[in-house]
């Protein structure tokens, strides 16, 4: 088994970091994420929120790996999380659902509020392969190195969403409105059956990170 762990401190407080984490897909740093669906959600009696999400990611199969064992370069993952707004803790476990015979990856992430009103993220990753064929160690090393190389990217994705949230909160707005695309009613949705409040028109979004994000979302994008 290969193990990796890392802690990181965000300057922002726990509510906004937790929100950014749950909103992290889509973002330009996560173009390999093809879909993300909530498959279950429930409130516990103690007031915490349990969520299960099904995520499809596109992956690359390394050249040295025998292709006949991998049906396609996409992988399903399940993310199970618990949010405790009183204790200010998010716990999240993500693991792969397929290609288990090749490699099992489990990522545990926790976000906790610190005394200085910042947010501490702690990540642990475990990778196990029982593949054999003389490739077990190589698979595990590949997996853990890939994860380490991407951990910075995934943090940048969260940072980008954090920046957008911060900027959107500086603007005066009505209930439930932010200029982030997947927080707004999409143009192609005919009639949302939910009577939530909406602003009449979004005020001009700030430049910089927002324009980059918007351009990534332009209709010409094939995804």
């Amino acid at each position: 088994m290969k193990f990796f762990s890392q802690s990181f401190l965000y300057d922002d407080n726990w509510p906004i970091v937790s929100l950014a984490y749950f909103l992290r897909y889509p973002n330009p740093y996560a173009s390999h994420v093809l879909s993300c669906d909530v498959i279950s959600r429930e409130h516990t009696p103690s007031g915490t929120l349990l969520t299960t999400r099904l995520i499809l990611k596109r992956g690359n199969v390394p050249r040295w790996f025998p292709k006949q064992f991998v049906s396609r370069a996409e992988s399903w993952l399940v993310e199970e999380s618990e949010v405790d707004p009183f204790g200010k803790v998010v716990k999240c476990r993500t693991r792969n659902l397929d290609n288990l015979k090749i490699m099992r990856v489990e990522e545990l992430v926790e976000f906790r509020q610190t005394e200085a009103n910042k947010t501490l993220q702690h990540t642990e990753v475990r990778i196990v392969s029982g593949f054999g064929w003389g490739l077990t160690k190589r698979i595990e090393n590949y997996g853990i190195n890939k994860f380490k190389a991407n951990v910075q990217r995934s943090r940048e994705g969260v940072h980008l969403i954090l920046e957008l949230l911060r900027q959107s909160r500086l603007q005066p707005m009505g209930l439930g409105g932010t200029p982030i695309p997947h927080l707004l009613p999409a143009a192609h949705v005919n009639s949302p059956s939910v009577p939530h409040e909406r602003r009449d028109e979004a005020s001009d979004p700030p430049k910089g990170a927002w324009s980059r994000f918007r351009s990534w979302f332009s209709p010409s994008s094939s995804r």
Partner: protein
Amino acid sequence: MASSLSPECTPLKTSYDVCFNSWFEGYLEPAVSALQTADRAAYAKANAEEYELKCGKIWQEYKACVHKAIKDNGLEPVLQQAREEHPLATPPSSSEHRKA
């Protein structure tokens, strides 16, 4: 790429996400009074009811669509196996949480 595994579910997903995210922002910052344990249960119940009122209907529609897509894609067995191997643990009691 805020899309669903099935394109026909994507509009429902988007509507649901908008509703949920708006409720979720408020959920993440409970009123200071609710942080007293005695009020927590009542506050939590009110939160859950508000979610149900605002997002319950769209959630049912989205959920039905997604679960059908999961069946159609043959993903039920792998999900079931994942649940059996590692069921989501019962929520930890609040005494386990460190005070910030």
